[in-house]
């Protein structure tokens, strides 16, 4: 297998549209890179920035958020909240040294299997250009031996 960098991307999809777009892409045998690992949420409104930070800190190289087109949200307008959070997250993550290419928000209705697959392919390429993130793991307290060990 080629040794080129294969980014790991966590995708958050919405149960009513982008998750179904992924299904449709699958059923219509559309090929797209396997780098994205999808997590289903009821709505992109459910996306908590903590999830994005968790993904990056656990080793993801990119995070994709895919929701319904504005105005078509199954819950009427909750994708607007996802949009606002995305815009604030991009600004904050920049100060952590995480470039905008690593966090992507896209809209894909249940019928847009092809478009969703294309969106994933583009993102995989972009993150491949940007390179691995390799966020260091979280320090774990070292448990001292009970006896008076060396300082």
């Amino acid at each position, binding site marked *: 297998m080629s040794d080129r960098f294969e980014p790991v991307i966590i995708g958050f999809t919405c149960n009513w549209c982008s998750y179904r777009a992924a299904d449709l892409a699958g059923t219509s045998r559309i090929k797209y890179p396997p780098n994205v690992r999808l997590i289903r949420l009821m709505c992109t409104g459910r996306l*908590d920035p903590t999830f994005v930070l968790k993904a990056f800190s656990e080793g993801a190289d990119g995070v994709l958020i895919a929701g319904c087109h504005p105005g078509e949200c199954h819950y009427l307008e909750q994708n607007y909240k996802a949009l606002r959070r995305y815009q*604030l997250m991009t600004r904050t993550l920049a100060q*952590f040294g995480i470039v905008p290419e690593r966090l992507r928000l896209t809209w894909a209705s249940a019928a847009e299997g092809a478009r969703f697959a294309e969106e994933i392919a583009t993102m995989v390429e972009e993150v491949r250009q940007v390179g691995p993130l390799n966020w*260091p793991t979280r*320090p774990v307290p*070292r448990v001292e031996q009970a006896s008076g060990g060396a300082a």
Partner: protein
Amino acid sequence: MSKPKFAMYWASACGGCEIAVLNIDEKILDLDANFEVAFWPAAMDVKYKEVEAMDDESILVTLFNGSIRTDENEHMAHLLRRKSKLLVAFGSCANEGCIPGLANLSPREGIFECAYTSPSTENPDHLRPRSAWQAPEGTLTLTPLQSVVRTLDQVVEVDYHVPGCPPESHQIAAVLDVLIAVVKGEAELPPKGAVLGAGDSTVCDECTRKRDIKRISKLSRIQELPMLNTEDCLLEQGLMCSGPATRSGCNSRCPNVGAPCIGCYGAAPGVLDQGARLMTAIASVVDEKEPAAIDKVLDGLPDPAGTFYRFSLAHSLLRANRAALAEKP
């Protein structure tokens, strides 16, 4: 039976926690009556050597404030963990890294760059403090700074947490009462890992300002809001306030005097990342739908990371800027 030992130590800290403990006023006598202060650099002349000579777990309770910035801080954390039965992360520095934790937003090298080449510094031969330096009379050592600030529980097991910058004196007094009751056998020890001296909601719970449904159309800075009134919620008047995502317990000190809450009591119970809570709370109530209009409102926050993680950067999920983390110790 001699009194149980009490210790208070400060790692990378400012001494505010010590003053807050002294500010429990008369209750300091209860401390003296029920405990033998074994080690307290701010107020007692006990030296490190003497602490190392103590038996393990001979100190009943150690209030450890200050974050882990240098090797010495870490060494003392391990030492006091060994010597103390109960190690309490006391104050925001030990719990979340506090304001000095903001140094994690840029590589450690920047600290030396700024400090030792500032406009008021005459440093023609570019001297830098070094971990070991050969003086004519002998080698002098300085504990080196680590690449990023860490919190106490990222270095050693912590038994209890007392948040706040500094913890409010009435809360410290309450924690002291619990300790005294435990010592006298009148009360059980709280569950390990418990947060003491704080409420279980957020600052808004104790804030006396009127609150309404939040819809933010503009975020301004305090100097742009001379007409802030004392009745309504500051956030609703367009001033960024960290109250909604900051743990209660301080009786909403700052908002009650017209200043915004800056988040010093850390995250609400069970919350992993205080900054993320503030980010999502503010973003969700921005009253715009078009990306450009949303951006215009968000421009009211010139420093998002600094605002959302003012006190909890070192304990957040990401902990630091990528470049800072990448710097080898």
